[in-house]
């Protein structure tokens, strides 16, 4: 237990977490500090490209073991399945309408790539390797959850039909294309390619991540200020409970398919994290009557900081205990 606390504390005073906290504090104090939209988009393109490329290069050098397909499959199953768990939990402990509950559920089946990246950093610092193809698993988990949510709405008699073209749009969504594309580039060019662009995608990565998290703190803080009165205590409880449940499901699947300790932790993190980029955009189109203030606040304002600060160290500790690693 004190191990978890120590881990959590060490994690809390990293530049990354503190940058997020700075952004959060600045927004809550109503500072006019802002990061221009174009710069924020530029940084997220950089992060997706770097993380995809490094994952691909790692697969190229370590080779693809047999669990690659199993891991991707597990990711897809999680992404399809977790929304049902989330929906049930929300209907149980909150007063959310089915429509809003389904929209929130979609976010928790999908993933947050920044949480994934933060997890990678924590593992790296502790010298724990993880499978390079976890990036591919992350990409595979982005979209299925949206379909589950639409099905939940349709089943409940709501208008959860796919707007024409939406499925295509979701699958060809910029972040999926960039992540998968750079993963493939990394796999094809391998060690040599990585050596060529490492001074761009490896060395300054942590620093860019700090500024990106500063911005996420600003956005989360602005969201929290506006969400007063909309987000209730039971919803907040959901935002902390759900990632715990997700991570345990990830743990089980990870152990079953035989991932390494690092891979298990990454799968737990993916399962525990909630989307705040791809899914909100899809929800605006598919479930426009659902309230964005609810799902954005929960995923960005509650679950994201929870995972970033306490979640990741807890998942790591659990995985270490279970695998004896």
């Amino acid at each position, binding site marked *: 237990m004190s191990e978890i606390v120590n881990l959590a504390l060490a994690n809390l005073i990293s530049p990354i977490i503190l940058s997020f906290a700075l952004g959060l504090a600045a927004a809550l104090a109503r500072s006019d500090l*802002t990061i221009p939209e174009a710069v924020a988009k530029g940084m*997220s393109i950089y992060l997706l490209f770097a993380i995809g490329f490094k994952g691909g290069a790692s697969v190229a050098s370590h080779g693809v073991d047999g669990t690659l397909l199993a891991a991707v499959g597990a990711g897809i199953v999680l992404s399809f399945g977790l929304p049902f768990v989330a929906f049930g939990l929300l209907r149980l402990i909150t007063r959310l309408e089915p429509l809003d509950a389904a929209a929130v559920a979609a976010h928790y089946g999908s993933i947050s790539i920044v949480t994934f990246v933060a997890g990678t950093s924590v593992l790296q610092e502790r010298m724990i390797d993880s499978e390079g193809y976890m990036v591919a698993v992350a990409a595979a988990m982005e979209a299925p959850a949206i379909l589950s949510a639409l099905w939940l709405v349709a089943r409940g008699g709501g208008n959860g039909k796919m707007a024409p073209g939406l499925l295509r749009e979701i699958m060809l969504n910029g972040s999926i294309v960039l992540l998968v594309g750079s993963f493939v580039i990394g796999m094809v060019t391998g060690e040599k390619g990585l050596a060529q662009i490492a001074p761009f995608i490896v060395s300054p990565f942590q620093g860019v991540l700090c500024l990106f998290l500063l911005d996420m703190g600003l956005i989360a803080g602005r969201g929290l200020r506006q969400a007063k009165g909309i987000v209730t205590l039971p919803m907040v409880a959901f935002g902390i409970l759900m990632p715990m449940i997700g991570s345990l499901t990830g743990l089980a699947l990870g152990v079953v398919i035989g991932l390494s300790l690092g891979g298990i932790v990454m799968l737990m993190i993916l399962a525990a994290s909630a989307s*705040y980029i791809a899914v909100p*955009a899809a929800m605006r189109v598919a479930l426009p009557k659902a309230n964005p203030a609810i799902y954005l606040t929960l995923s960005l304002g509650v679950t994201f900081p929870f995972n970033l600060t306490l979640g990741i160290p807890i998942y790591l500790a659990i995985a270490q205990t279970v695998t004896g690693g």
Partner: protein
Amino acid sequence: MEMHSAKRVSIVIEAPLESRLTDALMEAGVTGYTIMPVTGGSGRSGQWTRDGQLGRSGMVNVICLIKPERLDGLLKAAFTVVEPHIGVVSVTDAQVLRAERF
């Protein structure tokens, strides 16, 4: 110079709907449109700002100049897209130089 009556329709709508709206406009026989960025705003669904937006969020302003007789068709087409979403539609009387283009 000779001017011709036209209507200027301005639609503020969520960015993820942009292409759906312009597709609907084109189907309604519109000959052109202009898309302008919006950096923030406020309405019934609260206040928002574009800074630091993640993903394809925020709103855009789609502007359309059309012959007055086409207004109703355009509004119906736009309304189908806008109605279930966050957004605002307004129309102004305008004058344009080359009527044959609209």
